[in-house]
């Protein structure tokens, strides 16, 4: 099974990754090998196996609905590339 450069280009675009042509070729090859491995798995009979959504055996990890101590929002906003007052500033978005 081969993914092809076009498919890799599309996935890269969805992930907002800018790849050079050389990278595209290289990653397409690598991803083909990942898919080959998946094809091995697909050969197994999984008819009676429940799909795994999580590797842990845990369920229902919940917390009480109680406000946590406030975080210093300045420290969070400092991570934004740009800000204006209390806002994060981004390029113009239209709807």
């Amino acid at each position, binding site marked *: 099974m081969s993914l092809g450069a076009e498919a890799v280009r599309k996935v890269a675009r*969805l992930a*907002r990754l800018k790849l050079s042509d050389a990278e595209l070729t290289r990653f397409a090859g690598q991803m083909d090998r990942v898919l080959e491995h998946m094809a091995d798995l697909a050969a197994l009979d999984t008819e009676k196996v429940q799909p795994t*959504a*999580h*590797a*842990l055996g*845990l*369920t*229902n*990890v*919940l*917390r*009480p*609905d*109680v*406000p*946590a*101590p*406030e*975080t210093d*929002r300045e420290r*969070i*906003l400092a*991570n934004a590339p740009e800000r*204006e*007052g*209390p*806002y*994060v*500033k*981004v*390029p*113009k*978005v*239209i*709807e």
Partner: protein
Amino acid sequence: MSWETVIGLEVHCQLGTRTKLFCGCPTGSFGQPANRFICPVCTGQPGVLPVLNRAAVELAFQAAMALECRLAERSVFARKNYFYPDLPKGYQVSQYELPFSRDGKLAIADKTVRIHRIHMEEDAGKLLHAIGSEELPYSLVDFNRAGVPLIEIVSEADMRTAEEAFDYLTNLKAVLQFGGISHCDMEKGELRCDANVSIRRPDAAFGTRVEIKNLNSFRAVRDAIVHEAARQAGVLEGGGTVVQETRLWDVAANRTEPMRSKEEAHDYRYFPEPDLVPLVAEEAWVARLRAGLPELPAARKARFMAEFGLSDYDSGVMTAERPLADYFERVVSVAGRPAAKAAANWVQSDFMARVKAEKADLAAVPVTPEMLAEVVTMVVSGKISGKAGKEVFARAWETGKKPAELVAELGLTQVSDEGELRAWVDAALDGNPKAAADVRAGKEAAIGSLVGAVMKLSRGKANPALVNRLIKEKLAS
């Protein structure tokens, strides 16, 4: 041949929790400064772990019960991947293949609308494109709402008119409010609706559907559906085809417009959220939640009719909204069941007129249920006249003073003492010999002007029913 409109609605409803879905940030951010309630979890800082809010799950489960849905034994959160500046993590935590509930229903006027599914998800942040009327050359992001717990309630395409869609939303809101699941305040963004609209010839296959967004009120939903259906009919009758797309309702222009930003074909690459473990609807837990589900609107309406003797109409008005039903029930609990009908009349007339005129919040009106009960009791018992009651109510609303105090202050106590009343009756008969003669001659209608004269002499304080009787007695003798 006419067209039939086919409508399905997707409603996002904020669960009434104190904190967000996966972190301890408060949810009550309406009117707060931007980015007031944010933390490393809801802003997607590296290395953090979300932990599911128990109250959000419980309210979501109760919503499913109130809407007669089947609860899934096991549900799984998934990442919906896309990039948008209001989405700090680059994905929204939602439920996809395994939502927590499916297959519910909601009754509207004369049909039942099926509910396809309900799933839990987190809200995104808010984008600001303008300050006041000034359009900004950039956009600003406020993450206060990012991570706020929502349920998305997806109906089947069972509605056929804009009116049915309006009814569905009205009833859905009532169920969610009465069930204590959400406050459903649209102005605060606690209830939002997208509409899927298509048209077809009756009995033909479904047409291509258009999704309408930016619907900020139930009225907007109704208007947008009417206009969109007409637009689609125009397209088809002109030989064109309806394009599957998302359109925005422009309330000022009264029409839908295509979205300016072309979304890429939806490719969300959902996958199970590795940071959250599956959710299991354990039997004992579900039973406890079911037992704790508050009385829903239909049940409450029936009880008001049975317990308080209200008419179907009155009971419907009193249970249109949870805060109103709570207010009314409190009035009756103080004034007593025999006064329930009178209480319903007061709530519907003077009270609602004030509430509507001032857009008052029912939880914070100046006339508390106890105060209105006092007014109703005084009128029902004849201590004050109905007219005086209206004045007391108005003054109580404006001043916040206790009704009994206002009655004393304004000298509004109704006079029912027959001796005092007789003196006014005699004076009225002397002053209106013509009317008195008419009544004696059998013209019953003339008694009105005599009662009026007594009311005037007493400056409105005479008990009109007693005055009526005394005049008749006097003229019969």
